[in-house]
């Protein structure tokens, strides 16, 4: 019988649905809770353990008390021995993760931890650079650039069960612990920093890859994708763009500057804010759409007051990366402008009540995640409002090729929806060009 350790970071993923781009730091967590964030780490950890319990009960589980593990074990019906208690159970932080991991490390054969990139860094800190203990992340964070996570909680349970079965189980491989480079982000570049490696039981397609750097796609390729996207958008559609370098470049080709992170809404410029009377029956004004009990600010030309921005209402526009300088929209393309940035799940649901949404996402480079990594605002409830054909994937041929045949992935937190969306995704790769690509969960 193997001994399995479990450490849950209870606040991981808190900022996801409410568009905060992360959950690190007590200020962010407080703000997330103010915006109505509901903790999800315990539930997602429970899903992992339930999958494990379904496959084997031949494990001895060691964990920390309360939300740091005990609660998930109990909910999954797995007996667990509590070997660590955080000092302030209701307000745990990185120190608690480090201490819990250290308390477990010497006594377990495999450590499951639940969190995001920040939690993975805490685990790395606790175990040190030369860690030998096999580790596997249950993905419960907001964005997960690291390669130490299973593709979804159930996959984590499945792999842990395989590990427990001993012979013929997955082999270990060193997996990167990464986190977003905040200094680079302030300079307008979305990159990850490598912090170290942890040994992970690797099962192809069930353990995720690390995020790859941007492929530096040519403006021509991205302009072609923008043209194809525009040709598929109805005049009334609100264009909802996920985060990333690709979507930002596509928005730029459409004439709109958007941030690298968060979910953004674009409207066709000069199109009455995208509000046609037929869609705006209950709008209080020509377009002051009631969104989450706040009016969608009518964006003046130039500076746009971002809706629900975690920063000040009049945040400066994101700096333009070198080389991505103002490419005017290709001839014949309708220009778009930014309606709102850093949207929350609640904002998106409210927008969906008044407007047809066209959602365009680009997979995380090298990793393939479309949903459930860094864009939890696009929640199952939001996705269920989309009309057929209104979820489009944007990627250059090079970005698809860099997946080396691995499928696109989704992890919305709703198994039924994940199954429904799986199959083949239409990926816009250029003007008049699409790829049909496998989408899996």
């Amino acid at each position, binding site marked *: 019988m193997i001994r399995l350790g479990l450490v849950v970071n209870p606040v991981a993923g808190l900022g996801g649905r409410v568009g905060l781009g992360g959950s690190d730091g007590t200020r962010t967590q407080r703000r997330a809770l103010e915006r109505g964030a509901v903790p999800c780490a315990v539930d997602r950890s429970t899903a992992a353990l339930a999958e494990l319990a379904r496959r084997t009960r031949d494990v001895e589980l060691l964990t920390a008390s309360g939300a740091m593990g005990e609660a998930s074990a109990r909910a999954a019906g797995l007996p667990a021995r509590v070997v660590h208690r955080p000092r302030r159970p209701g307000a745990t932080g990185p120190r608690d993760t480090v201490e819990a991991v250290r308390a477990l490390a010497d006594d377990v054969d495999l450590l499951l931890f639940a969190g995001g990139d920040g939690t993975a860094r805490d685990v790395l800190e606790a175990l040190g650079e030369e860690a030998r203990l096999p580790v596997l992340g249950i993905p419960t964070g907001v964005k997960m650039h690291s390669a130490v996570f299973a593709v979804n909680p159930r996959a984590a349970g499945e792999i842990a069960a395989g590990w427990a079965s001993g012979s013929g189980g997955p082999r270990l491989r060193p997996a990167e612990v990464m986190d977003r480079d905040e200094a680079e982000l302030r300079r307008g570049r979305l990159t990850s920093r490598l912090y170290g490696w942890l040994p992970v039981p690797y099962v192809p397609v069930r353990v995720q890859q690390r995020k790859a750097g941007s492929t530096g796609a040519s403006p021509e390729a991205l302009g072609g994708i923008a043209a194809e996207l525009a040709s598929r958008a109805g005049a009334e559609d609100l264009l909802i763009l996920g985060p990333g370098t690709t979507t930002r470049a596509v928005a730029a080709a459409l004439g709109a500057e958007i941030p690298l992170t968060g979910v953004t809404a674009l409207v066709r410029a000069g199109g009455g804010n995208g509000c046609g009377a037929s869609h705006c029956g209950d709008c209080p004004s020509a377009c002051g759409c009631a969104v989450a009990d706040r009016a969608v600010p009518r964006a003046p030309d130039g500076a746009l007051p971002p809706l629900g921005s975690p920063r000040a209402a009049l945040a400066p526009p994101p700096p333009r990366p070198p080389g991505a300088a103002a490419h005017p929209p290709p001839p014949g393309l309708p220009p778009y402008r930014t309606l709102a940035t850093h949207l929350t799940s609640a904002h998106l649901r409210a927008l969906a009540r008044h407007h047809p949404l066209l959602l365009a996402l680009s997979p995380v480079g090298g990793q393939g995640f479309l949903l459930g990594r860094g864009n939890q605002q696009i929640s199952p409830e939001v996705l269920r409002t989309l009309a057929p054909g209104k979820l489009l994937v944007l990627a*250059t*041929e*090079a970005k*698809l*090729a*860099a997946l*080396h*045949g691995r499928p696109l992935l989704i992890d919305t937190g709703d198994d039924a929806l994940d199954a429904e969306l799986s*199959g*083949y995704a239409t990926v816009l*790769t250029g003007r*008049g*060009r*699409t*790829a*049909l*690509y*496998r989408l899996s969960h």
Partner: protein
Amino acid sequence: MSAPFDTHPAGPTAHPAAGPVAPEDARIADKPALRRFHQASWDEKLIFELGSPGERGVLVPDVDPEITEALGGAVEVPAALRRTTAPALPEIGQQQVLRHYLRLSQETLGADLNVDVGQGTCTMKYSPKVNDRFVTDERIAGLHPLQDESTVQGVLEILHRLEGLLKEVSGMDRVSLQPGAGSAAIYANVAMIRAYFADRGEARTRDEIITTVFSHPSNAACAKTAGFKVITLHPDADGYPDIEALRAAVGPRTAALLITNPEDTGIYNPRIAEFVDIVHAAGGLAAYDQANANGILGITRARDAGFDLCHFNLHKTFSTPHACGGPAAGACGVTEALAPYLPRPTVEYDADRGRHRLDGDRPHSVGKIRPHHGVVPNLVRAYAWIMSLGADGLREVAETAVLNNNYLLHKVKQIRGVSVPYATGRPRVEQVRYSWEQLNADTGVHSEQIGLRAADFGAHYWTSHHPYLVPEPMTLEPTESYSRADLDEYAAILAEVAREAYEDPETVRTAPHRSTVHRVRPEALDDPARWSPSWRTYRRKVLGAADAT
């Protein structure tokens, strides 16, 4: 230990793998397995920079007095056709020209010089020199494309017979020899597909063409050029074209499937007939890109899998020279239903009169793909090649090419760091796309760098089309022309470069060391502001000449 300019391989710093230094009286058998190759570097100027004003290679004689007399006075080019300024040609003597091009030829690798199995997908095979004698014969070389057809019956007969041979090889009902290369042939097929649906009033509704990512990129590009929307299918987990993806892709908008088989991975799709059936059931056509036909000649045919159109690259499978990018030759084969749309003119045989004629009166034709009758010298070469082999010989070509490929596969997969993605354990047809992913993970050396180092041993090497779907790819296609010794040498070169990558990666990373010292800087090829396809643009963009416009 790095050796950036290893000009004395026989000296004390000689690479151990270069083998023992043969004594003066060494027999051939004592030669090392790896050549102590060094390429010439002439530092040659462009021909436009050579010569001097007034220098001439040919002194054009005056018009023969008898001709002048026969024409009744001075012979002059009509004023309207006369140049007002002399052409800006180099002024240079014959010997200088010969020397110039011989030097340049020493700075390249090529099919007649090195073991060219590294140019995968291009089907580098021997172009028999005897066939060049036919096309340089005055009876072919002296023909003009505008001659009256009564005076060119011989060459028309060759074209008509070649069409017959290719009909037999493909199973199709008609063949056009007009396209100047593979991409031109694909374009001709796409144009015929467009015309076929236009005739049925479906030009607007059937606007999508489906292809696969491992088919040649020209399929997608030609479809796009002809105005179709393109849907690209990615392979399934085993590397086969994904039949479920095809089912998801077809519909009332489907005009056609353009697909290669075997694809550039060398994997034969055994369900190809099912692919065709799925497209037919949706009302679309199926076109077979047979650029990779070298391993299936005489074994399977486009028609047998139900295809409506196909094309061959005569410069690949049928031995005519690639000619450094053309002119080459393509051939389109179609079923009777598509025959009205073939490029015009077609070559017809009038049995009653025993005469061949050109038929330009084809109202449904897609028109001309290139002027006149195609690249006739290459068509003559292809005809001669097929006739020299016969039906059994063609099949033997395919069998030998497949055997050579699987022999090389067997040798290469034993090299450390290389893998053969997809369809594990299955043989390949005529080529293999390998991966150096493991070697790259272990050493940091990239596939392109292996290619540059292979050049130091006199071998050419190719990765794959971009973007790389297989990580760190290498594509080898040995064809039937290479001997076992050739294949052993090529495998030994790869093994040596892989060994260096593990033991002395710096030597590989900084290669080439024994080739003409240059590396192509891709930015000069990618940037319209800098690329210089002509002397005039070179002067303007690179030399900054103000008078060059």
